[in-house]
């Protein structure tokens, strides 16, 4: 059974802080199919379209019939551990600091033998559930997990390296006024977050939620206006060194297309939704990136809430969609810039949320509670792209199938 992870000791400033290093990062193009699946939390392997062979490691041709018609398909996760080892010596700097490390061979029911990380609760002879997760290098890797959930299994040190679990970590939620913030605080505390900072802009006009949130234990409300550079810098100076997870809930939404709208509203949307993200990343990013190997409460994730219309515009929210596309683009650059540190950038895409600015739209809409659940799940599972709710999932599928068809359908009000 996994040993329960204890809260971290107070850090001794005289001891060396572990510097961020990454596990091996190089992959072939074919192997990035694993990364793509892991980022979304699905378990996919290469299937031959001609003969049905399931193969691993990823190849450029079928190892049974030589067809090059290969597709990534969701695959059964069950298998049996047929060999295990505990590695005590490695020339790789990342693993040297984390030895001993367990790996094993698993014979998947789907066919191939997989060399994988082993969760502490599984060993030779066990039937397991294989999972694909992103490692600190941002690449998809296999880990064999117990078939049944065991208590505290997420505390396993090898599994925890592959997730952004909130347990014992300190979280900053940037906007107290987001409808998602309340349920998010509740879900994070339940998942074991040690402290939650909540940003509040214009604190002279407090919202109705203020008192309830400010009264919570392990929660502090802090002044933060993401459209104001000095406000962001000031808060980063105060809590940047103890922000392990940053969840950006700040956003500005106004309905309307492009032709008929005042650019003042558009400017406001870009200020908060796109440039606000940049300001937060500039102020908090470097500090977080330097603490990604810093023990139990190391920095792990930078989370953005995006509209799924970042992928393809909703003409009824033209400027807002544009600001979301800009934010998505910024998040991709941040991923590249944080890559060397292992800090994960998570995008949670949602359809219209159930709030005052989406009133004209028909249901289904995303309830704040559902959104908060998706965010915490993304952290616990270590995902990179999450589509929350039916509208976002539907839109993502259509976007994958054909972005042009989707564009036409959205233009027609579909």
């Amino acid at each position, binding site marked *: 059974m996994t040993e329960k992870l204890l809260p971290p000791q107070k850090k001794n400033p005289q001891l060396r802080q572990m510097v961020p290093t990454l596990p091996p990062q190089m992959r072939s193009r074919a192997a990035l199919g694993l990364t793509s699946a892991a980022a979304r939390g699905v378990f996919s392997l290469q299937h031959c379209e001609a003969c049905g062979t399931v193969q691993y490691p990823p190849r450029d041709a079928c190892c049974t019939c030589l067809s090059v018609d290969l597709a990534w398909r969701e695959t059964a996760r069950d298998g049996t551990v047929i*060999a295990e080892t505990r*590695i005590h010596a*490695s020339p790789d700097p990342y693993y040297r600091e984390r030895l001993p490390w367990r790996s094993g061979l698993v014979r998947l029911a789907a066919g191939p033998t*997989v*060399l*994988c990380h082993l969760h502490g609760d599984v060993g030779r002879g066990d039937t397991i559930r294989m999972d694909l997760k992103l490692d600190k290098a941002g690449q998809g890797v296999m880990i064999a997990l117990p078939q049944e959930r065991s208590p505290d299994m997420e505390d396993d040190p090898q599994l925890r390296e592959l997730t952004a679990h909130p347990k014992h970590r300190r979280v900053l939620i940037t906007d107290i006024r987001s409808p998602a913030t309340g349920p998010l605080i509740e879900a994070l505390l339940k998942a074991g977050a040690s402290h939650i900072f909540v940003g509040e802009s214009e604190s002279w006009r407090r919202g109705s939620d203020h008192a309830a949130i400010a009264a919570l234990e392990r929660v502090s409300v802090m002044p933060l206006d993401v459209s104001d550079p000095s406000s962001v810098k000031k808060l980063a100076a105060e809590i940047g060194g103890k922000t392990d997870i940053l969840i950006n809930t700040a956003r500005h939404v106004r309905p309307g297309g492009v032709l008929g709208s005042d650019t003042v509203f558009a400017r406001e949307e870009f200020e908060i939704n796109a440039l606000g993200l940049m300001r937060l990343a500039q102020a908090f990013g470097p500090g977080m990136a330097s603490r990604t190997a810093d023990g139990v409460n190391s920095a792990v994730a930078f989370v953005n809430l995006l509209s799924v219309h970042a992928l393809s515009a909703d003409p009824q929210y033209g400027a807002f969609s544009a600001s979301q596309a800009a934010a998505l683009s910024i998040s991709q650059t941040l991923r590249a810039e944080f890559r060397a540190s292992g800090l994960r950038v998570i995008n949670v895409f949602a359809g219209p949320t159930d709030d005052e600015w989406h009133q004209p739209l028909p249901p289904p809409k995303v309830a704040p509670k559902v959104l908060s659940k998706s965010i915490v799940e993304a952290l616990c599972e270590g995902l990179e792209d999450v589509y929350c709710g039916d509208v976002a999932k539907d839109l993502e599928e259509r976007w994958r199938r054909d972005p042009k068809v989707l564009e036409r359908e959205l233009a027609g009000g579909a």
Partner: protein
Amino acid sequence: MKRQSYDGVVLTAPVSVPYVRYSQETAHWWIARALKQTLEVAGLSPRELDGFSVSSFTLFPDTPVGLTQHLGVSPRWLDSIPMGGASGVVALRRAARAVQVGDVDVVACIAGDANRIDSFRQLLSSFSRFAMDASYPYGSGGPNASFALIADAYMAEYGVTREDFGRIAVAQRANALNYPNAMMKSPLTLEQYLSARPISEPFGLFDCVMPCAGAEGFLVMREEEAQKRGLAYARISATIERHNAFPEDPVQLRGGWAMDIDELYGMAGCGPEAIDLLQTYDDYPVISMMQFEDLGFCAKGEGARFVREHDLTITGDFPHNTSGGQLSAGQAGAAGGYLGLVEAIRQVTGQAGGTQVAKARTAMVSGFGMINYDRGLCSSATILTGEGA
């Protein structure tokens, strides 16, 4: 169709350039030294080099083509054997056929590798595409971890213990003490083997080879050519090679020899009882034990009993890896795939010096190479004969 014999073709002029743990010198330097030595034994000048077969992991960005200009040689026959531990036997197979049909008169077969500080890590991380994609990211234990998994499955399947593997390592160390070029110079006891620090369980330190720099080489020529030059030589009774055998096996509990062993003995016209000494590819003792089984010295799963019942030292009833193998002599990259072959040529030609086995007339050498993902892909073997000591 039955394969033709290698009648009329011989192996001669075995050379070993003493290994060094870390060296600033390049693969080109090591290969040049082995080539010079082996040519000198035969009284040939570099200009006279007719055929050249090269195995090396560390020539990059060069290939053997660049090496010809680098070394100023103009061979009419050039080969590159990138098969790691199977390279020696495979090089001799290719060269022997070319000499036999007259495409070339004399082939120098050379393996050599550099080992600078940190070059082993760089080699591991880009060893193969599957290693890069699917084994190195999982703890970066390198071949130690990959073969530890094979050993774990093998021990569980056949009830083998670490003591059984230890017997192989201890006997090889005893042999190495008689081989002046061996990197390991002090005796090893079974207790030391068992209590060594763990490397990748079930492996401890003495299950693993020490990477180093070095080179090995020999010449392939017609028998009358060797006689004309007054060289002692070994004949080739039979050879086999195989790649990616048994891909359906979930984990490697047998190597490609198991597919081809009957053909090897059939071609040689003998059985395992005729073998006076055996040189296996010993990147790990478990792989040597697997070879005892797959080469027909005992049944599958009987390897542990076989090592308990036999003395594997030079003076024992089953002389094995007489120069200490890679476990005690060191692993000089691709030269590790030549170590046993070069030693076997010395043995059957009576030139082995301190490691000479009495009445060594028939030797078997097996090669094994290239852990591409989860298993070694190349296997090879040969039976050599000579006049002995």
